């Protein structure tokens, strides 16, 4: 079976969607150079030319506004932010214009803009090159937010958002870029609001987001040795959230842990726990557990990084403590 890396899969998605629709543009800093934003846009400029693949000035706000404007005449811009932190300049364009454009026009006008934002992790990226902010974006009405974990999912979600009519933010964690899965050659879609479940264990649901998915799967394997059988729920998108499958899973297991690669306070993990408890609080056999980033900005030193980011060992530790207590 043909395998691609996460980065190659994004690249293929962009090639295919630009072939399928002449209206797709790719805008972003350095998208037309050979490195192509970690290999994700490599080759696009050579094939599709400078009108459709644009090295945009370091003007994230104008780039996002321009994308909205271009979408009004039928184009489908894909914006690329080499580091999610940079897109903070475009928050007004996203919050005050992109996310509410359809609403304020009473459904008559849409802005099918897709934003790809790459999240840094490790090698001293530090506080200004490591933010994920998926919780912020998921909180905003009018946006679709995806946090794909696998090469397979990122191609499907990217094609779905580019050919869809809603603005979407695809949050891509760099640590995943070299990981492979089978990726079908044909254009395909992974729908928003559809989680996928790995495993059938009925002792524990591990609900996870993005870069925590491989961690969750490793932890699930380690738990088997302790005679605990888990099922891993990869959310794939946060907005919309697949509340049904989350609750279905926890209805079976009665215990759940959330692994969120974002800060603990006021984040996605709180939302997920709330969604479960609103339906199943009375049926849980343990209080919910969440393992997130500490409520701190990201340090640069590798020694600090090792303490900051949850690993399969620290997550396993937390789960075992939690299960013993309960």
């Amino acid at each position, binding site marked *: 079976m043909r395998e691609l890396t996460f980065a190659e899969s994004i690249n293929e998605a962009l090639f295919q969607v630009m072939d399928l629709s002449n209206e797709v543009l790719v805008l972003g800093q350095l998208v037309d150079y050979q490195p192509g934003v970690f290999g994700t846009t490599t080759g696009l400029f050579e094939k599709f030319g400078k009108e459709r693949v644009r090295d945009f000035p370091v003007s994230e706000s104008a780039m996002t506004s321009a994308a909205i404007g271009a979408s009004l005449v039928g184009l489908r811009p894909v914006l690329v932010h080499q580091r999610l932190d940079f897109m903070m300049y475009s928050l007004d364009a996203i919050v005050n214009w992109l996310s509410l454009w359809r609403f304020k026009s009473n459904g008559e006008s849409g802005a099918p803009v897709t934003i790809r934002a790459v999240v840094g992790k490790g090698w001293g990226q530090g506080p200004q090159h490591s933010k994920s902010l998926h919780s912020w974006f998921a909180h905003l009405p009018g946006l679709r937010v995806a946090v794909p974990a696998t090469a397979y999912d990122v191609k499907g979600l990217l094609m779905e958002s580019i050919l869809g009519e809603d603005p979407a933010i695809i949050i891509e964690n760099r640590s995943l870029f070299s990981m492979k899965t089978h990726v079908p050659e044909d254009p395909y879609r992974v729908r928003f609001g559809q989680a996928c479940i790995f495993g059938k264990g009925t002792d524990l649901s591990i609900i996870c987001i993005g870069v925590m998915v*491989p961690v969750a799967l490793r932890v699930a394997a380690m738990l088997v040795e302790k005679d605990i059988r888990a099922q891993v729920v990869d959310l794939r998108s946060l907005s919309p959230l697949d509340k049904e499958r989350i609750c279905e899973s926890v209805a079976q297991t009665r215990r759940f842990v959330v692994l969120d690669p974002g800060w603990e306070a006021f984040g996605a993990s709180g939302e997920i726990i709330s969604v479960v408890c609103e339906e199943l609080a009375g049926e849980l056999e343990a209080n919910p557990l969440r393992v997130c980033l500490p409520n701190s900005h990201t340090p640069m030193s590798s020694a600090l990084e090792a303490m900051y980011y949850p690993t399969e060992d620290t997550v396993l530790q937390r789960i075992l403590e939690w299960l013993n207590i309960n």
Partner: protein
Amino acid sequence: MKLSHETIVQSGPYSEVSIEGFDKETVLKLYEFMVRLRRCEKALMQEYHPADEIRCPVHFTVGQESVSAGLSQILKESDYMFSHHRLHGYFLAKKAPMRALFAEMYGRETGANGGKAGSQDISMSSVNFFGGAIVAGTVGIAVGTAMGLKIKGSSSIAVTGFGEGAADEGAFWEAVNYAVLSRLPVLFVCENNLYATFSPQHKRQARDNLSARVGAFGVETHSIFGNDATAVYDTLAYAAEKVRSGKGPIFIEAYTYRWNGHVGPEGDDDVGYRPAAELKYWKQNCPIHLLEKKMYEAGLITDEILDVMLEKIDAEIADAFAFAKSSPFPDVEDWERMNYSPDESLADRLLLDAKPVDFDQYQEFAIPKPY
């Protein structure tokens, strides 16, 4: 002598309005548009309190009628008009119906946006009009539409209307730069009315030379007295034509002044932010009166013609009020659905549905490289 708010007031009553060389029909249309816009605004202001059925912030245009009058004569149906919050003039310049404007302000289902947007955020895609209340926000959007129009080989243009306050925002300059860099068919129209709510331009901007600063980016700029309706029209017509021909963006700074407060029918002169003499000057050099005087002199208008015009205008306004007041309020079934599109037809047509695959979680996490 460089044009500025200071020099304009200093040079006394404006006497340079001319209708010579202009097509009579056009002059009449400019005049009628301004009269219609002003009467519309005044009627709304009159009706606002104590009825309190218009329940949204409204930013009236009284005193600033000539720019939108000029635009009404040069905008094509296929052109895109973007605006900030003080948008009634631009809305009407795009030939959008008064009924849709009024009903929107009354929060009714029949409003341009079904009561979702109100006055300051109104849009009407069927006439390619888009407004919004975050200052400078639509400037970048207009630039993007111009980019799209150029990519599509269209001969349409994007026009963006804003006040001088928009040039306080960094995003404004990003947009200007990109318009020049990509040589885009966008017309920047700045109505410099001196004030951002209470705060005058010289309190916010280091230099009173907006046109020069924009020009430094490589844009052709024109700085004009904004209450001279034929001169404004002339400049807009020239600029639109040139932008349409693909020669790149043009920036027009029209000096003008609003009579009323920043927002609402209530005045705000009790705040004491602007000199009485200044307001008096601009009222005396009102765009309608300046043009009207010349038209009377040339016999282009008479009291009889004006009476007929006013009757027609007042009937339209009365009809718009009646329509708005008798329209139903909107209802909501699903709040979330109003924020998303039900249309998946393109993806349905082009994409297969995914089937699950295995994932080997023991692969190495990538170590970040620079690029």
